[in-house]
């Protein structure tokens, strides 16, 4: 019996203690007619067989050269990260409800909160949300609660924000009659301009969301946008790539007074691509709205003897205390992945993160130069980008990407799926993991696809 330690003698002795004859007797309060029949599922197999099956399936999807980004990035993850994270004491602990027996996890979260607050230049961070997309939904809900000046249940959401984020957030907030209002972008720059926003001036919105860099890799004029939103009574929600924050102005310093809430996908900080999860969403905010924050928060305190220690705090926001009046229903979050990010950030430091960001940026630029040297291939937008780029091809991007895939190059994503106006457009990136040979291999593969 996999994972069950009981011997026949154990069972007999235990049943005797309980005073029943069989294990089935313990189920005698359950109406007989709902007891399950046999299942049509495979018989149990051994670890050895399963490892082989899993190895074969994992191998089937490997040996590819990946230039897809679109919110999830292939970065080098130091070996130390997952070696330490996989220690049983991190891996198999529960949420730190008994603080004295969970100081390890609690201190890690406190350090994580510090990292995220300092990276974003915000006042406080929570202990993680599920992921970037659902995090944006939580941020929108939080902004609506927090914006005391606004009665609106509407939030302005530029179309330069990831369509996957917008979709996710919409699906989560819509049941509360909250509307995410699309804002168009400048077709030359691929960014959101004041021009695009003008029509909403004077209207009541709870918040404006600003992504930096945006989904196209394009850099928004975040200072201008932030000030515009604040001037119009809106809170500002920043959606940022944490690696980029080593280089780019952090949300806390956008415009005159900084963003009010900053969220994003934590994956770039030491989390493997892993088909999309587990990642983690981060959310930071200004101190004054911390009580509107969803999710767990850890505080530093002292014990009976005055010794420093850490504990869950501000729990009155959470579902297990506040129930239907909670700031969110989130309970289990992404603790382990957040732990990985904490170790990753410690290993890299601010300087290391800068180097990673620079290397990604350079590789992407480099690849862009290589690809646009091919006949008919050009960049789609004329604004500065960070570490990701949109190219327009002379032919259907869908079929080009398919053909590249046959050469085991995952060349990016076909933007026309999400933006009908961006026909033949491909969104790609080249992270620090790519060598010059990798870039040239992409160029050559694309050249031969275009030639064929």
């Amino acid at each position, binding site marked *: 019996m996999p994972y069950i330690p009981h011997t026949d003698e154990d069972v007999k002795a235990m049943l005797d203690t309980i005073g029943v004859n069989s294990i089935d007797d313990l189920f005698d309060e359950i109406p007989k007619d709902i007891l399950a029949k046999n299942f049509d599922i495979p018989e149990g197999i051994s670890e050895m067989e399963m490892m082989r099956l899993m190895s074969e399936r994992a191998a089937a999807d490997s040996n590819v050269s*990946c230039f897809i980004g679109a919110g999830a990035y292939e970065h080098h993850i130091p070996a130390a990260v997952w070696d330490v994270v996989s220690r049983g004491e991190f891996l198999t602990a529960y949420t730190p409800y008994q603080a004295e027996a969970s100081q390890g996890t609690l201190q890690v979260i406190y350090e994580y909160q510090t990292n995220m607050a300092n990276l974003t230049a915000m006042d406080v961070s929570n202990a993680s949300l599920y*992921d970037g997309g*659902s995090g944006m939904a939580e941020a929108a809900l939080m902004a609506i609660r927090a914006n005391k000046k606004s009665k609106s249940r509407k939030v302005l959401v530029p179309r330069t924000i990831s369509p996957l984020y917008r979709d996710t957030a919409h699906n989560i907030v819509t049941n509360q009659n909250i509307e995410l209002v699309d804002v168009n972008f400048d077709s030359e720059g691929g960014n959101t301009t004041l021009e695009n926003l003008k029509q909403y001036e004077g209207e009541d919105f709870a918040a404006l969301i600003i992504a930096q860099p945006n989904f196209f890799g394009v850099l928004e004029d975040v200072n201008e946008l932030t000030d515009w939103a604040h001037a119009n009574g809106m809170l500002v929600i920043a959606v940022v790539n944490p690696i980029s924050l080593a280089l780019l102005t952090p949300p806390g310093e956008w415009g005159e007074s900084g963003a009010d809430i900053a969220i994003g996908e934590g994956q770039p900080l030491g989390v493997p691509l892993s088909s999309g999860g587990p990642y983690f969403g981060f959310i930071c905010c200004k101190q004054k709205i911390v009580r509107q924050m969803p999710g767990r928060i850890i505080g530093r305190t002292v014990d009976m003897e005055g010794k420093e220690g850490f504990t869950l705090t501000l729990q009155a926001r959470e579902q297990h205390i506040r129930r239907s009046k909670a700031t969110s229903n989130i309970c289990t979050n992404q603790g382990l992945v957040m732990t990985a990010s904490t170790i990753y950030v410690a290993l890299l430091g601010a300087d290391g993160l800068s180097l990673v960001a620079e290397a990604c940026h350079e590789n992407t630029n480099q690849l862009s130069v290589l690809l646009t040297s091919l006949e008919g291939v050009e960049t789609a937008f004329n604004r500065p980008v960070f570490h990701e780029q949109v190219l327009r091809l002379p032919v259907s991007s869908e079929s080009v990407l398919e053909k590249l895939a046959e050469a085991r190059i995952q060349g990016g994503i076909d933007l026309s799926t999400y933006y009908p106006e961006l026909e033949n457009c491909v969104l790609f990136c080249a992270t620090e993991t790519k060598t010059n040979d990798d870039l040239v291999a992409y160029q050559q593969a694309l050249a031969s696809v275009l030639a064929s």
Partner: protein
Amino acid sequence: MLIYEKSQAGRRSISQAPITSTTNTKVSDIPEGLLRKKKAALAEVSEMQVVRHYTNLSRRNFSIDTQFYPLGSCTMKYNPRGAHKSAMLPGFLGRHPLAPESQSQGFLACMYDLQEILKEVTGMKGVSLTPMAGAQGEFAGVAMIRAYHDAREDFERTEILIPSAAHGTNPATAVMCGYKVREIPVDKNGDVDLAALKEAVGPETAGLMMTNPSTCGVFERSIKEIASTVHEAGGLLYYDGANLNAILGKVCPGDMGFDVMHMNLHKTFATPHGGGGPGAGPVGVGERLLPYMPTPIVGKESVDGKDVYRWLDEKDIPQTIGRLSTYMGNAGVLLRAYYYARLLGREGMHRVAEYSTLNANYMMKRCENAGFELAYPGRRATHEFIITLSSQAKNLGVNAMDFAKRLLDYGYHAPTTYFPLLVPECWLIEPTETESPDELDGFVEAMIQIQKESEENAEMVKGAPYNQTVRRLDDVKAARELDLKWSPAQES
């Protein structure tokens, strides 16, 4: 000591720095005004310092790998190392979420198989794996209930009924889905108060959310009557699968009359809790809610006699409530659950319920024999049970929290305390099936010891814990004088 306190300006884990290419243009193409001015205040430490710091931090945790951890409602069972290893295979870790389907068949096959297994063991008609935890599974479920009523243009249904023993996520979820919550009381045997339920249901009832067994640790005997009551009123039944471990393989939620449910794979399917997550909360639905399932879902087709897997999305499920995560959810957790499901297999599933129930009933009996007061003495334990320490609190001044803290000194993690809220001074104890009777005995012996200590020296017990890395912490100070991050100024 915090990692920042070990930091030294200029120190680095240099072998982790990527070599930048030769061009050396750096970021000159980014406008000055968009660049960061001051370096972020992060630790500057060596690789060894990092490894040592976090290794030592890990040692300040209780965990399943080191201790018995009978935290009620949390199903702290053994997390197979093989599951971890197989989900950490480079081929799985390296797959981009938007990789083409043609280069994703290995991963998709696992997901498809998992969907099928979960459908079968829950008696549901469809499963979507995408919710990233139990609470998000609840959200998906209630959102589907809403989509169902909306599709029928039945817009009057504005209430979700929830028994008072329910977990906080249930009412919080209902509200996130735009519903009002109406609480249904629980009677002294731990059952839902049927009369109260019958009074509460009506045309405003969108549905009822409940677990069975409930968080009272007992099986809701009138489940079929509850189901028909709600169904007759036009509502749907949501099953909170957090307690699925109690009935896995023995009773299918579908057969109890539930229309929709979530599973906490990080509980019932043994994926590690990770100190707070990640989990996975797939939803299963009956016939009526099939059209509304959240995307993406994995479909299988036969192409030239070969199985080909592909993502199903809005195009395939036009009435879907849509995606709830950026990509497809917590894939790595799902792979671990798949591993676990395959190892248990057909003949292993029901043993989960059987042996977790055996362990709980054995412990309950031993506690009772040792003089501890059961919350529901006439009832069978399910996979968990409740004792109340009210008399200890009243007579000795030692409450449930004191008992819990003292237990840590004996090397056992404390059970869940003060939940469910309706039982005073309660401990919700869930041993799970993977613990041997020796551990259960050791735990009960410790309780007996603490009882004795409480009688002889209550003050000592109230001062616990003594053997942990810190003594009892000041939660009030933590909440009053918020200290939520380290900052350089504060320290220097």
